């Protein structure tokens, strides 16, 4: 095989990994369960992407590893719960339009609350610890605990049910496969957000600055861009996405608790490492891989579900020590 082909193979292999895993799973479990689990895996993956994408950009742009990210997920979920309370009439109606309007209002409120909290968090906490990784870890873990306790003070310690809207309950039958309606909905919402983010990053000047800043902070500043200001915007957007992800995840699980964000944390960090810290495309592939692996293995050997993702991460790191799509070759 020529060097050119090997080079191409090496470049495209990370993108081929997801379809390969899907194809391997097909004969093992049969078409019916495979379709159900694949949709479940994709929707889980896309929700994880919503949460992880902000975190990976935050790290890539300013080398800030924010362990409090899970808190924004939880806050988003609780704000959505609060907003959906008065709108219970709309979500209980068997009207898709009313259900979607209620969800949209809750989604925007969750994003706004987490984004505003993120803005304050950056100014008060993160700004003090730029360039100090150990202090970042300590202060963000501490902040996570504080915010979780505040959530308990505000909303109570008990887990609260968050029922899905009437139109999104139940399943859709495709051949022999039963696919949960909410999962299809979550998949669509997640894809819309992912595409919007991709368009922003690739088609706008600000997106270009973000991508360049992730690669080389110093050079983008030497070109006249104030990376700190850009970072504040990215931090807000990242935490707003975490809030949206929190709301969608809580409805996915039909329950909200102060641990809603924590329950995603391990998976989110696995995704970041698999994808390559700072890489949005890597994050997307990583999230889909984690979602699919979690569902496939959960079906075949339920006790191995979480362990399977750690094994997946170990295997990928053996193959690509800096993740699937690292942001620079250095």
């Amino acid at each position: 095989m020529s060097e050119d082909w090997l080079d191409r193979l090496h470049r495209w292999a990370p993108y081929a990994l997801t379809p390969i895993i899907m194809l391997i799973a097909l004969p093992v479990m049969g078409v019916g369960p495979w379709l159900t689990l694949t949709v479940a895996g994709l929707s889980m993956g896309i929700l994880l992407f919503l949460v992880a994408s902000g975190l990976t950009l935050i790290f890539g742009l300013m080398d800030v590893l924010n362990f409090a990210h899970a808190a924004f997920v939880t806050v988003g979920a609780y704000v959505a719960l609060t907003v959906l309370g008065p709108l219970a009439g709309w979500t209980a109606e068997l009207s898709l339009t009313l259900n979607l309007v209620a969800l949209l209002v809750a989604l925007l409120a969750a994003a706004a609350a987490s984004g505003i909290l993120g803005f304050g968090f950056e100014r008060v906490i993160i700004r003090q610890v730029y360039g100090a990784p150990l202090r970042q870890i300590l202060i963000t873990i501490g902040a996570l605990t504080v915010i979780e306790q505040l959530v308990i003070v505000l909303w109570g310690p008990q887990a609260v049910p968050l029922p899905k809207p009437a139109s999104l309950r139940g399943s859709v039958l495709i051949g022999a496969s039963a696919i949960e309606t909410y999962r299809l909905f979550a998949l669509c919402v997640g894809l819309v957000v992912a595409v919007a983010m991709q368009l922003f990053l690739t088609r706008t000047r600000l997106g270009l600055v973000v991508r360049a800043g992730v690669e080389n902070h110093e050079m983008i500043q030497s070109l006249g861009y104030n990376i700190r200001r850009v970072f504040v915007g990215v931090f807000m957007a990242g935490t707003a996405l975490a809030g949206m992800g929190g709301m969608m995840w809580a409805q996915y699980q039909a329950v909200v608790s102060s641990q809603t964000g924590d329950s995603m944390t391990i998976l989110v960090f696995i995704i970041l490492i698999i994808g390559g810290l700072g890489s949005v495309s890597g994050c997307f592939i990583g999230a889909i891989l984690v979602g699919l692996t979690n569902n496939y293995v959960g079906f075949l050997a339920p006790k191995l579900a979480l362990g399977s993702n750690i094994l997946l991460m170990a295997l990928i790191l053996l193959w690509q020590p800096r993740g699937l799509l690292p942001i620079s070759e250095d």
Partner: protein
Amino acid sequence: MIGDGDALLRLDGVHTDIGRYRILHGVDFAVRRGRVTMFLGRNGAGKTTTLRTIMGLWRARKGRIIFDGQSIAAMETPRIARLGIAYVPENMGIFGKLTVRENMLLATAPRGFVEQQLDRVLESFPALKLKWETAAGALSGGQKQMLAIARAIIEQRRLLLIDEPTKGLSPAMVDQLIEVFLRLKSEQTTILLVEQSFPVAEAVGDDVAVMDQGYIIHAGGMAALAADEALQHRLLGLSIAGAI
């Protein structure tokens, strides 16, 4: 002594520390308007540190940096860049995941490319035109250097700071860069150029500043230094034919 009116950039007693180490020990020199000032010295003399200090990437602990009558020593890097100072670092600072077009676009004003300016730049670097939508990381070393310089001159700049642009390039590529520098020089562009190759310095330089161990040990005309082999030996330690 260069008068204040002639000097576009002046450094007075600039000290810079990196960690616990003092790298610059009171650097004094000036860059004259519309001229190419060569910045020479052995590896580790402090040339890159001086350029980074001018750009605000490292802070001067003491001393003044005056650009066109304005003190910039305490300014943030983006503000210094917006004054019209372009910086081409030794590692070129190319964004490897972005295309050549995107790399160039980032260096333009918010209105984007001006066709006439773009044509003028691509005329000097035709290889970039052919690789316009290629990821910059896939370019050869020489093409990356061309991109770095093209990016620096896509807009009208008041001062170019260029760090060792010919390092590791083939002789043909070096000749091409010399042509570009000569063209910029004919357009009265002010350049502070760190260079390890004396022949390149001789070909493009008007003025010269020589640095050693964090001090400026010589400043004057490039032609005078090129004509005085004994001075070259004393300042740079090598014959004029070779690299410094």
